[in-house]
């Protein structure tokens, strides 16, 4: 993974000192809240319902054991002993004190972390396939390009005050595990007919109150010209994106208003001017950055392992975990492990300090000191020898981290909702907990099969409800929480926005309604047909009929 050089380290430490001074001036009254707010947001510090919340960047979701241990320490010393992994592969601390935030940032800087650009109208943390560098279906490691984009975009003077926040995602595998099509810019690495690797560029995707699927504006962009092309997109957006109405300020609205073809032409014209004389990344610098993402020194291991097979046969829980939480690695004899942060009745994405340390130990001992955070609010050990899987599972199980539900109905994405968030209109967490408990039987979950259930506590859609196979949106109506269901959303290569199925349900009825949707699917599916495919075939009709006939 990328390591700070002297420039990075100095820059981050200077930023901590600068923010320490800003906090002192705020506490003494030299800065008003109006003056201070943009400064704290630039450092990832929000004021939520009950306390300050600090959002810490985990660039493209990649981190290591030393960083995880520091996050555990921070959660113990400055928060309430836990952290919350978000849908942008970041981590949030929900109970920090203003005067201690500079110390937290200093502690983060010690392990090459910060909270810069986790808020504000700038280019946010670039996200990536959490299996990057390990996936069997990988074309090229997306993280190299994420890091290049990160360095280019950090405090970019031209793009620090965009019309609105800007989210970029990069995927380097066949399967889209980075939700590219619901990002402002989605970059898919691909190989062209001559074997050259470049990017398909998609623009104008997003969720929020106006959900849209990104449009492809360039089917192939040579890799070496990525930054000039990104700069061209950002320039067009910076110039034409609306600043008079924040609800219409994202690039998706511009793409919609202009049309993808017109926008693509404008970007191309800008690019033709810009690329003349643009200093592309030198090969030496590209090689330097790529070095940080060189594959770990994996041994030649047997693809099959007798011990693993015996353990699998002997323990049904282990077998279930292997089936759902272990994915194919590009290197024979290795596997990718997903650590579910969705225990039965738990808070999606939450992990306590002790568990963080367990995960750090496992990464160090069994995964070449690498960890990933996923946008689905889980963690990943990307390089585990197959013969170590059983011991990894036993250690995870001993600390409540072996839930075998990755990709199943209880692997719920949920934003913090109105339990924490000052923007929320309803709670998400209790709904996630009740659905998780309702479907606690793993056999039943396996029978239901692949299913994404996503919950947002407001129309801003941090919980990705628009692209959940089943999406739930919390709204306040007459002082009570109500939950609207959408069906058929998805964030993969066939990305689609879910359709609203009908009137919302009360907090007491929402788990029943989800169960009705599932029962309808189970009754009507064809053999082997996934929920999202059955919905595409059947449409809203039968689901709507059952939901509103019984409620």
């Amino acid at each position, binding site marked *: 993974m990328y390591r700070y050089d002297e420039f990075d380290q100095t820059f981050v430490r200077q930023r901590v000192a600068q923010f320490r001074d800003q906090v002192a001036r705020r506490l003494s*009254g030299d800065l008003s*809240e109006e003056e201070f707010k943009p400064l704290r947001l630039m450092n990832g510090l929000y004021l939520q319902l009950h*306390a*300050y919340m600090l959002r810490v960047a985990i660039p493209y979701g990649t981190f290591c054991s030393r960083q995880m241990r520091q996050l555990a320490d921070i959660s113990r010393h400055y928060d*309430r002993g836990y952290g919350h992994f978000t849908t942008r592969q970041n981590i949030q601390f929900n109970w920090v*004190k203003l005067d201690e935030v500079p110390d937290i940032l200093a502690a983060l800087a010690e392990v090459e972390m910060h909270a810069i650009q986790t808020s504000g109208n700038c280019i946010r943390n670039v996200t990536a396939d959490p299996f990057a560098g390990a996936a069997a279906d990988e074309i090229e490691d997306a993280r190299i390009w994420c890091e290049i984009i990160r360095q280019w975009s950090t405090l970019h003077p031209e793009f620090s005050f965009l019309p609105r926040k800007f989210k970029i995602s990069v995927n380097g595998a066949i399967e889209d595990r980075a939700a590219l099509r619901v990002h402002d810019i989605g970059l898919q690495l691909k190989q062209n007919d001559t074997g050259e690797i470049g990017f398909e560029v998609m623009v104008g995707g997003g969720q929020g109150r106006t959900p849209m699927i990104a449009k492809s504006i360039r089917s192939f962009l040579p890799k070496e010209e990525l930054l000039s092309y990104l700069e061209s997109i950002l320039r067009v957006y910076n110039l034409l994106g609306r600043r008079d109405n924040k609800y219409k300020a994202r690039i998706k609205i511009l793409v919609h208003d202009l049309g993808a073809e017109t926008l693509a032409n404008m970007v191309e014209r800008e690019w033709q001017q810009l690329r003349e004389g643009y200093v592309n990344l030198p090969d030496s610098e590209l090689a330097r950055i790529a070095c940080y993402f060189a594959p770990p020194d994996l041994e030649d291991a047997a693809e099959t392992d007798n011990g693993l097979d015996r353990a699998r046969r002997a323990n049904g829980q282990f077998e279930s975990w292997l089936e759902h939480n272990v994915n194919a690695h590009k290197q024979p004899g290795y596997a990718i492990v997903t650590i579910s942060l969705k225990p039965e009745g738990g808070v999606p994405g939450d992990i306590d300090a002790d568990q963080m340390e367990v995960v750090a130990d496992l990464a160090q001992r069994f995964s070449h000191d690498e960890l990933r955070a996923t946008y689905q609010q889980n963690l990943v050990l990307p390089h585990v020898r197959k013969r170590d899987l059983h011991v990894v599972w036993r250690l995870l199980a001993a600390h409540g981290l072996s839930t075998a539900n990755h990709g199943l109905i209880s692997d719920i994405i949920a934003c913090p909702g109105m*339990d*924490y968030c000052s923007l929320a209109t309803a709670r998400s*967490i209790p709904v996630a907990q009740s659905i998780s408990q309702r479907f606690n039987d793993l056999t039943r979950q396996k029978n239901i099969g692949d299913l994404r259930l996503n919950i947002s506590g407001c129309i801003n859609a941090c919980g990705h409800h628009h692209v959940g196979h089943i999406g739930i949106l919390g709204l306040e109506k007459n002082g*009570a929480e109500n939950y609207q269901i959408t069906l058929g959303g998805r964030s993969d290569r066939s990305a689609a926005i879910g359709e609203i199925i009908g009137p919302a349900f009360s907090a007491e009825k929402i788990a029943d309604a989800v169960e009705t949707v599932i029962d309808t699917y189970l009754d009507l599916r064809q053999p082997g047909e996934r929920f999202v495919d059955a919905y595409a075939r059947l449409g809203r009709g039968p689901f709507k009929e059952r939901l509103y006939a019984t409620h």
Partner: protein
Amino acid sequence: MKLEIVSANRLTDGRVVYLSHGGRWSEKIVDGRTARNDKESAALLTEAEASVAKCLVIDPYLLTISDETGAFTAMRLRERIRQFGPKVNQTLDQSV
């Protein structure tokens, strides 16, 4: 009858506080001073703004409460959640 109190977030730690007597701020809604008409509400808010100038709190505002059950309860759901805290990850030092 209209019953309002003033709430804000404390500057140092962001905690939910309510304007109490003598210009003090309390984490307990029961300590909140009430206003029963527009004039009293405006006076409370003016007093709260003085605390903003002293760097004690951020963004004070009026909220409607009920005392029908003998205890102050915020009328809006959002305010009730602010009052009682999240249902999860409670610890002893959290005001409930």
